């Protein structure tokens, strides 16, 4: 399989990375090189093989459903590019 210019533009949109036509054009052969190379996995017979989910076998732990932190609003907001009235501020989304 190989990707077209339109597909790369679509992937960039899904990934939320703004790209110029030039960048998209440069990425098409680069991505196709990598995709073509990983497709050699098609040679491997994986019939009946379950996808690996945990690399070291262990049970997922459960913990008490208890509040263990909080009251750190100012710390959470300290690195925000813009914070107002104790909230993250973003560009207006509703006209």
């Amino acid at each position, binding site marked *: 399989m190989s990707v077209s210019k339109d597909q790369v533009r679509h992937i960039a949109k899904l990934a939320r*990375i703004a790209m110029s036509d030039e960048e998209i054009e440069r990425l098409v052969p680069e*991505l196709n090189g990598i995709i073509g190379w*990983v497709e*050699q*996995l098609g*040679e491997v017979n*994986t019939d009946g093989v379950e996808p690996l989910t945990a690399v070291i076998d262990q049970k997922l732990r459960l913990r008490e459903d208890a509040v263990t932190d909080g009251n750190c609003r100012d710390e959470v907001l300290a690195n925000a590019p813009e914070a107002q009235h104790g909230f993250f501020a*973003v560009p207006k989304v509703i006209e």
Partner: protein
Amino acid sequence: MSELTTKTIADLRDGFRGGDFSAREIAEQFNAAVAAARVLNAYTVETPDDALAAANAADKARGNGDLGPLAGIPLGIKDLFATEGVDTTAGSNILKGFRPPYESTVSGNLRRAGAGMLGKLNLDEFAMGSSNETSAHGPVISPWRRSGSNVGLTPGGSSGGSAAAVAADLAPGVTGTDTGGSIRQPAAFVGISGIKPTYGRCSRWGVVSFASSLDQAGPMAKTVRDCAILLEAMAGFDPKDSTSLDLPVPQWEAGLSSDLNGKRVGIPREYRIDGVPEEINALWDRGIEWLRDGGAEPVEISLPHTRYALPTYYIIAPAEASSNLARYDGVRYGLREEGVKTLDDMYGATRAAGFGAEVKRRIMIGTYVLSAGFYDAYFNKAQRVRALIKQDFRQAFEQCDVILTPTAPSAAFGIGETTDPLAMYLNDVFAVPASLAGLPAMSVPGGLDGQGLPLGLHIIGNELDEQGVLNAGLAIEERAGFTARPEKWW
């Protein structure tokens, strides 16, 4: 005062405890060395006051005998570990100016053991790279040069600043992280030791995520013993990491022994690959003889899916990265691009400006292999092949105790010499299979190539058998007699 910066952690620890020198003298010498080596670009932030404060505390504690295992030892911390109040950028413009209000579990463990911090170490952006050239802070320059040449070489990556700092005596030991070779390949390139423990030994909490099913922290230092000392302090169960192993931390330093009698060393035939320089295969053969001399019996083994490890990795790692890096949205921390109208445009513009070319490439690949209609063909297929790679190792460890291979298929290369992404990915051909299987693995220096550059040997152990890996590493270290140092030009 003798040169303290060339000493091992074990010697610094013992000398400090024995009263030969103070912790303050250690910290001052390293601080001066760091400040005098800025041309290497190993550190992104220098924190001399932090190192001095920990040293003063250690000197004070020496009187009353209440010393942590790393009291008096200043360390460099890879800039992928969140450090409270100190810039943590992951080598990316998108995290420019980010000062975490918390400390990563691993760096916190080191602090609790008494260590001070010399500064934050340069790395490939989000640890994505094998040469430290993708960093937003610019490349690290290796202290090593080819004989008779002054061409700038890479220290490998992604833990390139970490590697250069130890090799140039700018820290006695450092933290690294390894997703697909990022501790082991740079350690090999600069002639030092580094170990990636079993997945889950070191907490990932507070380590900037790249590929969560592969990311593991580990130490890099001058000797195998120093790696054991540091790993003991870094490792341990952490309820804040859901994949942290709830197991006691073994006493790896006390357990060190280079007596390999009764051990079998697996030599995987699939690791003899085309295009690897004869010098590297010759060093591998010497490594086999050194382990035989240590009492071990070499046995040929087969890891049949080895050649599929890299393509498997380059589906799984970008897929996990594309998901992990979705958090950089210009809202909660880091960069925000202004001057766009909508929220969606702000996301796109921020991520376009904040991420470098390699990170964008991997996010794009990851987004593609996870997208509707392709998930099964790529991502699930890769996870099935990963299960087969894991099974290869499981079967191999029925016939042997540790596995010996070369660490990397070449010595260090020049800055700007490798521009093709696929050629760059091949650097990790020997390192990636152990990452996919979650196994402990380390690189130890084996010798120099014809151009005077270090080459490493790579030991892979079974799950949780860091001791077996360290002991085989020690047996090689004792026999390789690797004492070469880069000639100081900086």
